[in-house]
C-alpha cells in the first residue's frame, strides 16, 4: 500500500519536476500563422504538436496568432514553422509549397501574403 503511494507520488513528481526545472524548458513564443477557419486551427495546432518539445499550441482564428510554449532544449520556433508550412500554412519565416497550399480544403484557402 505504502509502496504504491510512493510510486504514484514519485511518478507524479517526476513529471512536475520535469516541467519546472529551467525556464527555457517552458519558453513562450508568439508568431503569426496564415489561415482562416476552425479547420485550419485544428490542422495548425496538430502540426505544432507533432514537433517534439512543443507543450502547448493555441492558434486564434481571430488574430491568426499562434501562442506556443516549448522546450527550447528540444526544438526551436523554426522547427515548428517548418512543420506548419508542411501542412499548407504560411508563417513569417517559412512559406508553404504551392502543392501543399493547394491541397488544402477550399474553406482553408487563405489569402497568401
Amino acid at each position, binding site marked *: 500500500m505504502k509502496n504504491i*503511494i510512493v510510486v504514484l*507520488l514519485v511518478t*507524479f*513528481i517526476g513529471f512536475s519536476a520535469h*516541467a*519546472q526545472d529551467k525556464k527555457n524548458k517552458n519558453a513562450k513564443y508568439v508568431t503569426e500563422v496564415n489561415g482562416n477557419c476552425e479547420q485550419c486551427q485544428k490542422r495548425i495546432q496538430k502540426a505544432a*504538436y507533432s514537433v517534439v518539445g512543443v507543450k502547448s*499550441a493555441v492558434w486564434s482564428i481571430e488574430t491568426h496568432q499562434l501562442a506556443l510554449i516549448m522546450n527550447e532544449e528540444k526544438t526551436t520556433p523554426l522547427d515548428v514553422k517548418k512543420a506548419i508550412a508542411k501542412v499548407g500554412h504560411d508563417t513569417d519565416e517559412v512559406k508553404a509549397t504551392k502543392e501543399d497550399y493547394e491541397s488544402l480544403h477550399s474553406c482553408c484557402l487563405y489569402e497568401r501574403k
Partner: protein
Amino acid sequence: MHKIIILFLAILMSVPVFSQENLQEVKVVNKRKGIQKSFTVTGNTTLITSKELLKAACCNLAESFETNPSIDVNFSDALTGTKQIKMLGLTSPYLMITEENVPSVRGASQAYGLSFTPGTWVESIQITKGAGSVVNGYESISGQINTELIKPINDIPFFLNAYGSTDSRFELNTHFNTKLSDKWSSSLFLHGNARLAKLDMNDDGFLDNPLAKQINILNRYQYYNAEKGWVSFINFRYMNDKKQTGELNFSPERDKGTTNYWGSEINTERLDVSTKVGYVFKDLPYQSIGFQNAFNSHDQRSYFGLNQYNIKQSSYYSNLIFNSIINNTMNKFSAGLNFTYDKYQEFVNINDYSRIDNSVGAFFEYTYDNADDFSIILGGRVDNHNRLGTFLTPRLHVRYNPWEKGVLRFSAGRGKRSANIFAENQPLFASSRTFDILDSNGKIYGLNPEIAWNYGFSFAQKFSLFGKNADVGFDFYRTDFQNQAVVDVMQSAQQVLFYNLKGKSFANSLQLEFNYELVEHLNLRSAYKFYDVRTDYLSGNYQKPLQAKHRFFGNLEYETHIGENGNQWKFDYTFNWIGQQQLPTTASNPVNDRLPEFSKSYSLMNAQITKTFSSTFEMYIGGENIGNYTQEKAILGSENPFGSNFDASIVYAPVFGQMYYAGLRFKIK
C-alpha cells in the same frame, strides 16, 4: 541532489493536494440553453444552468431535477416531504453528490441532504452518468452530481426571492454580495422556509406534508488574483431544519414517547466550514495545484412514533490535487491525495452503532485529448480505509466523434462504499417493521462493503429537421453488484431484513431521448426510460420495490421575444408517466391492509408561467400534480398506528394532490 530536493518538495506539496478544475471553470452560462450537452467532453455529462433551475421555481436541490430526464425525481416520501432522486435506477446513495467538488450528501445526510441546499444558491449542476472521476473518491457507482454555487466574484449586489404555495409552504431567499477589494469578494446568502398549516387532504388522520422550518445561512469569501494565479474560497455555513409529522392531533410536547397519537420529529443542525486554495503556475497555464479542506458537523435528532433515531456525524475531508501535462497539452494528468475522517455517533433506539471511519487515498488520472474527435480518461486510485481495507478503483471514459455532431461514449468503473443502512432507509422507521440484520461478520453493522461495477455506452446526434435543431440520444448502462447491503422488504410486512447479497443483483438502464425545436422559441424535450433493476432476495428474485420499469418524460418550453425593457413571458410544462412499480410484500397483513403486488401506472403534470417585467423584477406562478393524482392508500394501518400493520413507508405516488404556487424575484444589478 538538486533533483532530489525538488522531488521531496513536490511530494510534500502533493500530499495535501485536492482542488482542480474549478480554477478554469468560471462558466458564463446565464443566457444560454437551460440544459447543455457537450459533444467534446469525454464523460456523459449534462450541464444544468441556473436558467433551467428557474423552471421548477421551488425550492431546493432535491426538487431541481424535475425538468431533466437523466434523473428521476420520485414524489416525496410520505413522512418528511423529501423528494428522492434516482439515476440509472439506483437511489442517491449510489451517486457521488458533491458541492463544488467536495462530497456533500453522504453518510448521515444521505436521506435529506439534498433538501439542505436552496435552489437559488445554485449556479449550475453537472450530472455525469456512469462511473465518475477518481478525483473525488471511490464511492460513486451510478454517477456523479456536482453543484456549483453562485460565485461571489460575479454575483449581483442583491437578490430576493419570495415564494408561497397552497400546501402552505413559504420561502424567502436573500443574497447580498459585495466587493471587499479588487481581489476579495464576499456573499451572504440567507434562506428561510416554513410549512405552517396542518393539511390532510386524504382524510386518513395523518398530515400529508410535514410541518417544517428551516434556516440556512451561507457566508463565503472569494479571493482572485489573475496576475499571480491564485484563487481561494472560504465558506461558512449554518443550517437548522425541523420537521414534524404524523397524526393531526399529535402534539410533541404532550405525546412524544407515548401511544396517545403517532408522531415524528426530525431535527437537524449542521455546520460546515470549507476552504479552497488554487494556484496556476506562472507562465504554465496548463499546470496548477489545489488544496481543499472541509469540516462539517451534522447532528440529527429524531423519533418516529416509538422508534428513536439519533445520528451525529463529524467529518473532515481534504484533497490535494496537482494538474499538469506530459509532453504537451494533449496529454494531461491529475494526481493527488485525499483524506477523510468520519466520526459517527449513531443510536437506533437503545442500540449504539457509533464508530469512526477514516481513509487515505492516492489517485492518478490521465487524459488524452487529440483536440478533435477522440479523447480518453483513464483513472485509478488506491485507498486504505479502516473498514473497507486497501483496494483499487479503476475508471475509464472514452469519447469518439465518428462524424460531425455525433458522439459515441463508453465508460466503465468500479465503486465501493459502506452502506449506512439506517440513515439511508429512514422512511422505514415510520412503520411497525422490526429491523433485522442477518449477518454479523462484516465490518459495518455486521455487513460487508458494497462493491459494484458499472459499464455503459451512449450515442448522441444533433441534426436539422425541417430547418430546426433536433437531437437524439441513446444510452445503456449496467450496474453489477458484487456485493450489496440488501434491504429486503419482500419477506414480510412486519420486518425489514438487511443482509449481504446472496446471488445476483443488477440494474440495467436504457434511455432514449429526442429533443426538437418545434417552432421558434418552442422546445420539446422527451425521453423514454426502461429500468430492469433486480435483486435476489431470500424469498426469490424481484424487481426492486418502488422502482418503475417504464417511464416517459416530456417537457415543453416556450418563451416570447425579450421586449424593450426586458419584458418577457416564459411557459413551461412537464409531463411524467410512471409505469407499474413492484410493491413491498404485504401478504402477511390482514386483507384490508394488503396492497397489490404492483402499483398502477399514473401520470403527473407540472406547469409554470414566468413574467419578467424588467431585468430586475419578475413573477412566477405554477402548479404541480395538476392532474391531482394521489395514492389510494398512503398509510397502511392508519387506524391503529401502534399496531403491527402500520406502515407509512410504502409511497409510490403523490400523497398530496394538486398544488399551486406563486413567487417573485427581485434583483439589484
